[in-house]
């Protein structure tokens, strides 16, 4: 197991109310794709980002452990945790138009990640960045490298975002609704890309989504969250063909 979440509880700092994430446990094996599904507001993003120390202000981890290759990320001091971010675990955000800084080119932002984690000469980094863009299925890598985020189509932007996530050579990618901002035909292509990357790089992926069709195509296992609690988890085949929980059935009925 490369990534294990154990009894994770996240709550709002100053009130004793119901936790946003309550006693959640699941794990991801090396090269495995695990889907985290649930309705909007069910705590998917919170669960995924807690380990990286990226919770919004005012949210705290009340208890639990998040293990990455055996290290408890919640116990690592912030300065060292930074070396995990991007380098061991990278995040692909839902809307790359917002996740990229509008003031800088795609190239500059991939370069920044390379510089932070590997240093090296500028020319070397550029070659690497172009290779990353190509690996993510972008043919006109040079042009994309020089473009500002708003100048690209949604599909290209999403691929560039994935290229940026790969720049730190992470072992785990957290993909937070990676396809909900692009149209259906492009979605299929991005899914293919994830599958290919998993195969070639032995990447593990935590796929956050509420699209069960996506889960069926891509994921090995699925974790179903509802109001911060796990209602069901297991192999995709099992859970989606014979959902035991009403909530899962509702999700399936709603999304397909």
């Amino acid at each position, binding site marked *: 197991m490369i990534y294990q979440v154990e009894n994770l509880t996240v709550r709002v700092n100053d009130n004793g109310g119901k936790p946003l994430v309550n006693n959640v446990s699941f794990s991801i094996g090396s090269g495995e794709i695990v889907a985290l599904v649930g309705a909007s507001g069910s705590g998917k993003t919170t669960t995924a*980002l807690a380990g*990286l120390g*990226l919770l919004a*202000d005012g949210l705290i981890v009340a208890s639990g452990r998040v293990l990455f290759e055996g290290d408890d990320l919640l116990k690592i001091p912030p300065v060292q945790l*930074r*070396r*995990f*971010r*991007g*380098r061991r675990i*990278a*995040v692909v*955000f839902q*809307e790359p138009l*917002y*996740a*990229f*800084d*509008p*003031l*800088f080119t795609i190239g500059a932002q991939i370069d*920044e*990640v390379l510089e*932070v*984690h590997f240093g090296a000469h500028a020319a070397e980094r550029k070659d690497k960045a172009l290779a990353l863009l190509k690996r993510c299925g972008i043919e006109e890598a040079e042009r994309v490298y020089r473009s*500002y985020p*708003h*100048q690209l189509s949604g599909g290209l932007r999403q691929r560039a975002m994935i290229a*940026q*996530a790969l*720049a*730190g050579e992470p072992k785990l990618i957290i993909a937070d609704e990676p396809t909900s901002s692009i149209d259906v035909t492009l979605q299929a292509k991005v899914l293919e890309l994830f599958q290919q990357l998993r195969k070639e790089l032995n990447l593990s992926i935590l796929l956050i989504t509420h699209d069960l069709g996506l889960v069926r195509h891509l994921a090995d296992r699925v974790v179903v969250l509802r109001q911060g609690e796990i209602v069901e988890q297991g192999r995709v085949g099992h859970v989606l063909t014979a959902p035991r929980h009403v909530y899962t059935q509702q999700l399936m009925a709603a999304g397909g």
Partner: protein
Amino acid sequence: MKDYHKSEFQIALGSFLRNRAAVVCLWVLGLLYAGAIFADFLAPYSYQNEDRDYSYCEPTRVHVRDEEGRWQRPFVYGMTVSFDQYHKRVYQEDRARKYPVEFFVQGDEYRPLGLLSSKLRLFGVAPEGRIHVLGADSRGRDLFSRILYGGRISLSIGLLGVAISFSIGLLVGGIAGYYGGRVDNILMRVCEMFMMVPGFYLLLALRSVVPANFNSMQVYISIVVILSFIGWAGLARIIRGMCLSLREREFVLAAKSMGVSDLGIIVKHVLPHTISYSIIAVMLSIPGYILAESALSLIGLGIQDPYASWGNLLSEAMGILQIQFAPWILIPGLFILVTVMCFNVIGDCLRDVLDPKIKKL
């Protein structure tokens, strides 16, 4: 492929250039700065060249016709001084002494950048005569030359002061806004302490701390430092406000998730987004520095004679008699006025152009 960014910039530039007043002001400022930079060449005299015989001499008249009305190349007469019954100096042109105005003449020596030595000056008259296009001061120094040299101090103090206080303001505001919480609280209380004290008293208090035996360069630097010391707080507060909202943007979270350091995020992904505001604020705050320097120099706490700044040139005009008999010594004030006005007009125009939100209000 559309290029919103460039076109946004081009639109801004375009509407800036369409603003007649702003463009004129830009040119005026350009001329003033050029005058200060090339003062050595443009000024007929060095800033300390004095001739007591020309004390409070009125602006020299340049003639193109001699007594008989014949056209000549431009020339000036020598001046003789006498005293009227009120002991007031009366200057009269001495028709016997004629000095043609010459161009590219050898005048007072200067050393650009402290390296080479040169005497080349744009215009001047033979050393026996004097030309004072804007009149002379109490010690018979050329006001025009001293205004050009004074511009070096008055015009650069604004830029330097703004550069320093903006660096501090951006950094403090950025850190306070980005981290929020306790850090923010402490930094903002510090800012408020600076903002609480009326600026001019703080200026005087800080100036009194500066040792009296400082040479003029040290005084100049300490004035810049003092002015920046006062100016950074207001800016820091506004930048902080902008950063508080900027840090909620998703690209900040994304940069964090990629392992970029906090300082890296502040410098690369937060502060650059305050650029429009910063440009406007820079333009609008430069006049404050220029005025503060003038005020200090005016009351004798700034740049000291024989060095010139527009403020200490004006300090000659503190007596009613001087103003009455030698009104031209008020001209440095005109330069201050024009400069301050130009910065304000440009700043206002930039605000209209760069910040659509403010315009709609």
